[in-house]
């Protein structure tokens, strides 16, 4: 297998030396962590083009994760959105759900674990919302014999009990976080406090394109393989570019992984879909980019859900992985520079899409991923001709069946 650099030089935006994408990003962390962030950045810069590192990473991505995963033509979903005149969008799924552990999260967890080993850190911590990043991290820690502590909100532990069991099965300690709403925001804060305390021995595998520099850049690059494979597969299938890329956005890692490769291809529309929870007009949503204002959370400046006092407000989504009041800074940059578009769909719309994809394609998507599928309902009627849409099918939905069953019972 060839050892392509993680971050091909022809690709687009790089953060500046302070880790800023325009006004967004940066490093807003306690002084104690500043040297660790510099150390991490130095290590990342050193290894990201190192042939030995890339060879190990790529071999594991192939043999352990199962990459490259397919770009699948969703025939019946395409027919569902077809117009009477025979035109209509051609819908393809980038099958990240077929990765080992069932989601895209492993791309980054694996990359960071290899980095941590080279930095001599034997203890790994991570935060998790839906549990997919926690599972991915527990998995790579088991694979490399690293000590692993996963911070998870108590509410999320309840709604994602299956993933809690999986993490423990692989030898990780799952640390319940009761603060706040007991969701991803609180778990992330607690993971950062652990890192402040144990920074000399511990690497923090942050699971999204959020947090202080260099995380947004590094996590994006480790997921960049999604977009790179997509480009090649589009080339193979129809000899061109996709017209539209569609992905769900919580922190935004699967979307950034797909988008980044295509940021410079002006003809490609980039669309991110956030969680509107019970509706944007209510207080119970997680539509950070659509409804938030710039602010600082977990070490980065980005769009943020906050009140009139600058206090971070509670997000809400049926999907634990999107239930976060912040978003990765590069998404804020892509929004303000109008390179990408961001919309939101409600819990109800996501649950409908969850069922629709299951029935039409025999693929049960994660609730997070279902948000991207739900937006097809709004998007498809507006499209002319037969544009090619690639949706990041970022995770599988086995973990969500109980949540959906309960939701349908309550709303049926």
């Amino acid at each position, binding site marked *: 297998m060839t050892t392509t650099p993680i971050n091909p030089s022809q690709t687009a935006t790089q953060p500046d030396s302070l880790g800023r994408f325009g006004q967004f990003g940066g490093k807003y962390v306690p002084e104690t962590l500043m*040297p660790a962030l510099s150390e991490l950045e130095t290590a990342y810069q050193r290894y990201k083009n190192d042939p030995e590192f890339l060879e190990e990473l790529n071999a594991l991505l192939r043999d352990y994760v199962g990459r490259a995963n397919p770009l699948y033509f969703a025939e019946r979903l395409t027919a569902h959105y077809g117009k009477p005149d025979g035109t209509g969008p051609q819908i393809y799924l980038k099958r990240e759900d077929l990765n080992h552990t069932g989601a895209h999260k492993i791309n980054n967890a694996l990359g960071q674990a290899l980095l941590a080993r080279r930095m001599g850190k034997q203890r790994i911590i991570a935060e998790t919302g839906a549990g997919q990043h926690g599972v991915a991290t527990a998995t790579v820690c088991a694979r490399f014999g690293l000590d692993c502590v996963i911070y998870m909100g108590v509410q999320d532990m309840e709604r994602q009990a299956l993933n809690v069991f999986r993490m423990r099965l692989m030898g990780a300690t799952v640390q319940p976080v009761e603060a706040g709403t007991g969701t991803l925001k609180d778990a992330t804060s607690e993971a950062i406090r652990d890192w402040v305390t144990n920074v000399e021995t511990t690497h923090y595998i942050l699971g999204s394109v959020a947090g202080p520099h260099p995380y947004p850049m590094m996590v994006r690059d480790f997921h960049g393989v999604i977009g790179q494979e997509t480009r090649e597969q589009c080339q193979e299938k129809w000899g061109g570019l996709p017209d539209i890329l569609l992905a769900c956005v919580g922190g935004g890692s699967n979307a950034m992984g797909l988008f980044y490769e295509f940021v410079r291809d002006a003809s490609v529309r980039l669309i991110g879909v956030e969680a509107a929870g019970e509706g944007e007009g209510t207080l119970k949503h997680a539509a950070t980019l659509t409804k938030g204002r710039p602010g600082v959370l977990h070490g980065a400046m980005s769009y943020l859900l906050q009140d009139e006092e600058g206090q971070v407000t509670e997000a809400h989504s049926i999907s634990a992985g999107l239930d976060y009041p912040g978003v990765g800074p590069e998404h804020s940059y892509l929004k303000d520079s109008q390179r990408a578009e961001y919309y939101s769909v409600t819990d109800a719309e996501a649950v409908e899409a969850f069922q629709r994809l299951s029935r039409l394609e025999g693929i049960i998507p994660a609730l997070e991923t279902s948000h991207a599928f739900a937006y097809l309902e709004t998007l498809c009627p507006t499209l002319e001709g037969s544009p090619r849409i690639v949706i990041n099918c970022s995770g599988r939905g086995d973990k969500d069946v109980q949540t959906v069953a309960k939701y349908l019972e309550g709303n049926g």
Partner: protein
Amino acid sequence: MPTVSDCFSKLRAKGQCALIPFITAGDPDLDTTAKALEVLDQAGADIIELGVPYSDPLADGPTIQAAATRALKRGIKLEQVLQVVQSVQGKIAAPIVLFTYYNPIFYRGIEQFLDQVAAAGVKGLVVPDLPLEEAEGLLIPAKERGIEVVLLVAPTSPRERVEAIAQKSQGFIYLVSVTGVTGTRTEVASKVKDLLPNLRAVTDKPIGVGFGISQPEHAQQVKNWGADAVIVGSAFVQRLATGKPEEGLKAIAEFCQNLKSVISV
């Protein structure tokens, strides 16, 4: 009310170490906060750090997190905290330093925030999630309004950073004694003994040591190692939050006197 720097100059002339207690504003309520400021001032506090409750206090351990959560549940707002600061002007001698995370400052707008806190009589700011690289935009406009922004040095900070931080810090330099968050610990990290002279070698500004100092013996230890100020937070917050407000006030008064007497020896 004198500035933080004035306060240190006076103490230095007398060869004294400053005592800086920390309390969270609005816990258990704003009346008690106002009374606590007066009580601490009378009980020997030289400077008082007043914490503005925040939803995501990354640098704080369980005690101060819980105090902030309680205060926010009561609906405490920055303006109310500043009214308390204003209400004690002329009544207390100790300058007040506001401890606040960055987002509430940024949300309001740096200039507007500084105008408001300056008008209330705040003399200094500690912003624990604003490291040197991000602090520039706050340091200059604060200085113009007579507010000193205190920067933090950590045990993990390499020498070049320590120098740069020491150079930019105003009022004093906040030396974080532990690799970790705020909260009481059974002993003071012995590392402080080495950190203090290293910091002293690059600056003549006053040095305050905080995080994890909770007992008179700790305070004495830190003073003997050469600190210009001892900062005690969670131990005060805990005492003030225990029992009825009058009991809490009595407890912090005694504790403050105790601390002051051991570092005045």
